[in-house]
């Protein structure tokens, strides 16, 4: 009798094992497809570059022009990172440790510039000072634009430092600067590095600001090569140089993160009781913030609004409305594709650590440093061979999805990692199969974080310029391209209404992302903890 029982259960158990394997292979397959899609741009560039003889590639790489552009790009990135890290860490520390009036609200002027794309910001300054141009102007613009990333990332890090540790350090005789250097800094340097990484990648892939200011970086060179219908293979080679450059930056960040203590469960501490109450410090923090807000928020808004009102009669309202709607639609479409593409990987990573999940995540994370111009170049060349897809808004939305897939996956996997394993185990012992566990437990807990991540992808896609310029169907305009084409020929008044609308739409999610009313974790913190 025992044997028959055993045989029956053996059959049942084998069937179960087979079902589980089937589910797993479907998921693995989906993840594999997504990883393959994410590799399209790099794959295209490699194939395209390899069509060029080695001699010509070498010649292209060592010609003075290439070296000069590479030097300019490096100098720009280094300068921007230095400025933003020094100012950003100082401001974040001030906001976190110093007793200030309305502390929570003071963070708004610090993050609001996130809503203003660099090209809009540049154009408002050129409209104000026509001679505004050159390398230092670019350092200024890009530093101001990216400073919020460093401030938010650092703040997120500082919130995880237990105030009691600082009190212990002080009681052991350390001064405030010593405490910061020996206790606080080692714990937040991973976060600072994450903020600096975002600033560096922004600078590398920026097209609008640098070209308005006549600074030629690698991104500008690629765009120019493409627009001049110059040899596409040459553009591909320079794109690979740009990718190599981004990779170096990403690796530098990973190195810093490896050295910093591994964050297990992140707790958020309140500093209410240990704020520094020194008059000169309060004065310094508030003055710096005020200057920053004036330069980064007040001046652009002043220019936009005054330009807007100076020729209200000439505004084409219909065109403005049409452009706004198509911008929102195509950006939302892109964000949804990104969400759909990152879901199988999310489910896989939420279930258990798997090798394919790990590799897919790595492949997609590399895409984090992929500039828009590179993805644009790859998709425009592939798309032109696909016929039906070429010159469609779908291809544009797909480009957005590929560009921001890393963002989407990062927010998804960090939201999912907040669901404790024990909770999933319990649901499973209570009779839920893998899918039910995902639907009833994992998804509801992770949904707010994933939603916020999707909004951020939407916001970024809405502001995207270089890939949009390459991939938009003829006659299709987004707010970004309208601003760009008007500003590029100094028609500042015409650009103003588009810029104003773009900034206003972007301000809403920016506010949601930073949530100054909540001291809880922000998306930037999630980004700072993004997968290694």
């Amino acid at each position, binding site marked *: 009798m025992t044997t028959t*029982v055993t045989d029956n259960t053996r059959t049942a158990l084998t069937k179960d094992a087979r079902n589980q394997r089937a589910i797993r292979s479907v998921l693995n397959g989906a993840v594999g497809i997504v990883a393959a899609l994410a590799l399209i741009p790099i794959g295209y560039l490699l194939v395209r570059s390899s069509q060029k003889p080695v001699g010509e590639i070498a010649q292209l790489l060592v010609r003075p022009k290439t070296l000069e552009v590479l030097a300019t790009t490096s100098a720009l990135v280094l300068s921007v990172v230095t400025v933003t890290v020094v100012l950003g860490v100082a401001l974040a520390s001030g906001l976190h440790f110093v007793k200030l009036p309305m502390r929570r609200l003071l963070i708004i002027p610090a993050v609001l510039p996130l809503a203003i794309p660099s090209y809009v910001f540049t154009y408002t300054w050129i409209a104000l000072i026509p001679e505004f141009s050159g390398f230092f102007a670019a350092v200024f613009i890009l530093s101001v634009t990216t400073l919020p990333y460093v401030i938010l990332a650092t703040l997120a890090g500082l919130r995880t430092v237990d105030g009691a540790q600082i009190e212990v350090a002080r009681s052991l005789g350390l001064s405030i600067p010593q405490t910061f250097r020996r206790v606080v800094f080692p714990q937040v340097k991973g976060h600072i590095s994450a903020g600096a990484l975002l600033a560096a990648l922004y600078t590398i892939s920026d097209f609008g600001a640098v070209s308005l200011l006549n600074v030629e970086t690698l991104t500008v060179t690629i765009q120019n090569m493409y627009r001049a219908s110059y040899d596409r293979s040459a553009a591909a080679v320079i794109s690979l140089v740009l990718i190599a450059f981004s990779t170096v930056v990403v690796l530098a960040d990973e190195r810093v993160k490896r050295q910093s203590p591994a964050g297990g469960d992140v707790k958020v501490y309140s500093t209410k009781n240990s704020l520094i109450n020194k008059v000169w410090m309060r004065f310094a923090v508030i003055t710096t913030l005020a200057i920053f807000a004036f330069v980064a928020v007040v001046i652009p808004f002043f220019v936009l609004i005054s330009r807007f009102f100076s020729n209200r009669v000439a505004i084409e309202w219909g065109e403005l409305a049409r452009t706004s709607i198509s911008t929102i639609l195509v950006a939302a479409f892109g964000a949804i594709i990104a969400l759909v593409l990152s879901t199988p990987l999310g489910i896989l990573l939420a279930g258990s650590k798997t090798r394919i999940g790990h590799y897919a995540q790595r492949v997609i994370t590399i895409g984090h440093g992929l500039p828009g111009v590179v993805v644009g170049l790859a998709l425009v060349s592939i798309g032109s061979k696909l016929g039906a897809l070429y010159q469609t808004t779908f291809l544009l939305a797909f480009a957005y999805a590929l560009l921001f897939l890393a963002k989407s996956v990062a927010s998804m996997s960090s939201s999912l990692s907040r669901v404790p394993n024990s909770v999933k185990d319990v649901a499973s012992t209570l009779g839920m199969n893998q899918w039910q566990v995902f639907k009833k437990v994992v998804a509801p807990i992770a949904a707010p974080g994933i939603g916020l991540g999707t909004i951020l992808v939407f916001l970024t896609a809405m502001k995207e310029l270089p890939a949009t310029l390459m991939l938009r169907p003829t006659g299709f305009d987004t707010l970004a391209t309208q601003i760009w084409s008007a500003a590029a020929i100094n028609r500042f008044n015409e650009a103003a209404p588009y810029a104003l609308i773009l900034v206003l739409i972007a301000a809403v999610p920016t506010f949601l992302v930073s949530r100054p009313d909540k001291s809880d974790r922000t998306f930037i913190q999630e980004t700072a903890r993004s997968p290694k």
Partner: protein
Amino acid sequence: MSSLEISHLNVTLGKKLILNDLSFSLAQGQIAALLGPSGCGKTTLLRSIAGLIQPSHGTVRFGNQLVSLSSLVLPSHKRKLGYVPQEGALFPHLNVAENIAFGLDRSIFTKDKIRQITKEMLDLIELQGFENRMPSQLSGGQQTRVALARALAIKPALVLLDEPFSALDAELRADLRTDVIDLLRAQNTTAILVTHDREEALVSADIVALMREGKIIQQGTPEAVYSTPISLETAIGTGDALVLAAAKMADGSTSYLFNSTTTGSEVEKGHIVIRPEEIKIDRDLSTATAVGLIEKIDYYGHDAMVSVDISGQKLKVRIPGPFDFVLGERVSVHHAGPVRFFADEIKM
């Protein structure tokens, strides 16, 4: 028939063998305590029983149902057991009532039936009126109660508790433990309680199983494992123990600190284990088998741990209060209890 039967179970995580040829069984309605230091494989064993880990070898049976045969595993959601992990793991997005009703299949139970079971469970854990609270609004003890109710609501044949009380402070811990054990007994539920607290294991369980390095080294009733340990290791693992050098003599007697009068030759060397409460001290030095000096008194109120120095040999003795011994006093020390001799392992 046994309600749970594990035989020759091997579990490997990474490259490490966590459970090593482990066998264990439990009858219907019995409560077992798995006792051992952290890292000995207690949680892994529990998770294997729950179907959350794939063993590499061995079988697990629930009654006459085979649920695990080598690497073929019935998935955990088909095992119908109650699992309470460390710190409860309540679903943070659901309120108390929704947490408790989580495992009740809506295609089997009507809405009213689910509401009724939830109410019964709330009565059972004495949290009436807490239906709409979120887990974050509960204290640690309340969270543990809800986690238990959630596990019991599906009327599981087997309940697995993984250090459910470890996050609580001492007093609450003892109270809640008593409540939980009473609850399990009232429902005649078979249960396994993982703990590293010796007292908790002895107080709660019908069967205490001692784990070391992926194996169960001794199991039995609490009285049995406490009073007749099979090795020095299990003696220390189940309670405070004094370990004294000793020797087995040719006449069968044991020579040690309190019995040095034996004559004849030593047959083998070893150690004996004495429980602190088996030692008595008094002031009548004339009948002394040994005389010691009181070096230290740790006073706990209901009793005290007194450290006595007997010519260089230091002993800890448990004395019920009240008493009037003072530091530095010379006292007579007696041993009144079984002589548990364990021969030293012979080194080859």
